[in-house]
């Protein structure tokens, strides 16, 4: 396995996430897509770290994971607030603010 393979896999994951972010109408699905993007980042970091023979990337990946977790916690809380206020979690219906 070469570095390129890992990078291509990460790029594919990232693109999938990006696609999901722009297309999933369901808030929970959208959060999952963001998770995909974050994991692509982690894959990148770890792969670079491994192939360059140093630890920085792996430490970075740990921090990135922690950040993503914190983000998702906030995100899920917001989704709950949204659900309470309108009874569903469809994002395409929440567009009162515009113009």
């Amino acid at each position, binding site marked *: 396995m070469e570095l390129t393979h890992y990078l291509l896999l990460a790029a594919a994951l990232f693109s999938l996430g990006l696609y999901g*972010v*722009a297309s999933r*109408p369901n808030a929970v699905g*959208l959060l999952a897509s963001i998770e995909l993007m974050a994991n692509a980042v982690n894959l990148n970091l770890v792969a670079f770290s491994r192939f360059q023979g140093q630890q920085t990337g792996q430490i970075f990946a740990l921090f990135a994971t922690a950040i993503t977790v914190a983000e998702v916690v906030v995100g899920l809380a917001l989704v709950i607030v949204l659900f309470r206020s309108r009874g569903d979690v469809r*994002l395409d219906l929440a*567009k009162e*603010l*515009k113009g």
Partner: protein
Amino acid sequence: MELLHVALAVLFVPLGIAGLLMIVAPLRRSGRAAGVLSVLGSLFALAGSLYLFAALFGASGSELDRLTTTWLPHARLGAGRLASPIELGVLLDGISVSMLVVVCFVACMVQIFSLGYMSHEPPADFGRYFTWQSLFLFAMNTLVIAPNLLQLFLGWELVGLASYLLIGFYFRKPSAARAAVKAFWMTKLADMGLIAGLIVLFRETGTFDWTVTTPAATVVTFLLFIAVMGKSAQFPLHVWLPDAMEGPTPVSALLHAATMVAAGVFLIVRADPLFAQAAFTREFMLYIGAFTALFAACIAVVQSDIKKVLAYSTCSQLGYMVAALGAGSQVAGFFHLTTHAFFKALLFLAAGSLIHAVHSNELRQMGGLFSKMKLTSICFIVGALALAGIPGLSGFFSKDLILEVVLARGAYVPLAALLVAAFLTAFYMGRVVLLALFGAPSEAAGHAHESGVSMTLPLVLLSVLALGSGYAGAQLSGLYAEPVHFHLSTIGIVATGLALTGIAVSFWMFGPAKGGAAVQAAFAPLGRVARSGAVDQLYLLGYRRGLRGLAAGAAWFDRYMIDGAINAAAYGTLELGGRLRRLQNGDVQTYLYVVAMAAVLFALAGLVGVG
């Protein structure tokens, strides 16, 4: 005490009071309290300026102290041409401190006088009046202690604003509102010269300092002088001054005796090193000044409104100062500015006291007031004699000095004009005194009575200075670079003779004998010319024929060409804005899509661009 701290306090205490009165509406509307506060501020400024003045005599050089602070750093003129930082600050030297004393003293007297004079105004208006008074004092002091021409310009414009507010104090009266606008526009028109002069100076030297040596001095000073002509009411830009008498009389005393109109002369005094490099400008000033002195004196002879007489007299005296400066004597011009400030303020305030008693500006409505208002009358007479240049009073010394320097310059035509003006000055002041204070009392004058102490006290104090300030001249001259010897010269004797003749003639014409009807008839055509306001007519003609035609053309172009284009552009922009709004559709996924696409496109652009 640190001198600079005193100077800063003198500057900012009136501003603080003005600001306080502007912001705290109940205080302003209370009237009386606002007035007292403002007077206290001016008293403080006066005390501070006197303290600085006292320090001046202990100092070794002429410059006491200087404090400047950078206002704008990095004023860069583009590639390679670095300008020095633009500074604001305080410059304390002989000129600025003496002027500070004059300004603060007159302002203080005027404010005390106003407590009585304006007491019949509604409280809100009374408070507004004193707000502007305090603001004016700040503006004028900013100008006076300016260390460079830029700050002087800022003060100059502030003075313009404050005087606009004060002249238009009775803004509900259409003529007062018009007069305020006229004064504003005439001086603004002239201020273009000041702005242009400053721009040229800055382009050439990269500073606003008046001590620089530059080949552009002639252009710069000539442009500056245009502004002076507007502010100091020199022919032909003097037309706003008589109209500005619409303001309350104490305002006239403040603006048109000691401060606002003197600002122009002060500018020349200040920028003397620049003017010294410009022989042509000085020559021009000499002639303009002498002509204005004579021209305005002629008109003053036939005015029937006591304030108009004094207004034209101010024009005339400013002409003297400008002529003196044109002849190259900084001291003569500034000395006359000082003495004139005192006696003219005295005259205006005393006239205000008379007007207050008879409720009219017209000389016909006065008459025989001497017996009713002894104190005011004596003060008025002191001022009139000082203005006429009677030996021993302040006006004599300064006028004499001016005549001497003009004579020494060998400029005989201006000298002759100034001598005739001296005769006319004595004559018209004699006329005013005789018509207003003596002779048959009019009906209104019959009920007149002396004004209150708040009005007479400033008169007495100013009288003392009108009597005595001339003797300070010798001392004052030590403060400047140019030493002056005071002695009774031939020209002084001639001028005194002319002044006495003028008074005698006025006594012969308007005194008890009422002789000399023939002379009066001889003056009649002049009167008609003056009342028709020939210069005003000329402006009107120029305005109607020239400017309006041009304006009509410009308006057409503006309406159909420029407006059309602008409207089209504005409409287009608004339309575009309205349409683009639909992009912002409220759907968060559209936003995410845009963010994602933008990132990808940026990356692609980079790949194409770099790769």
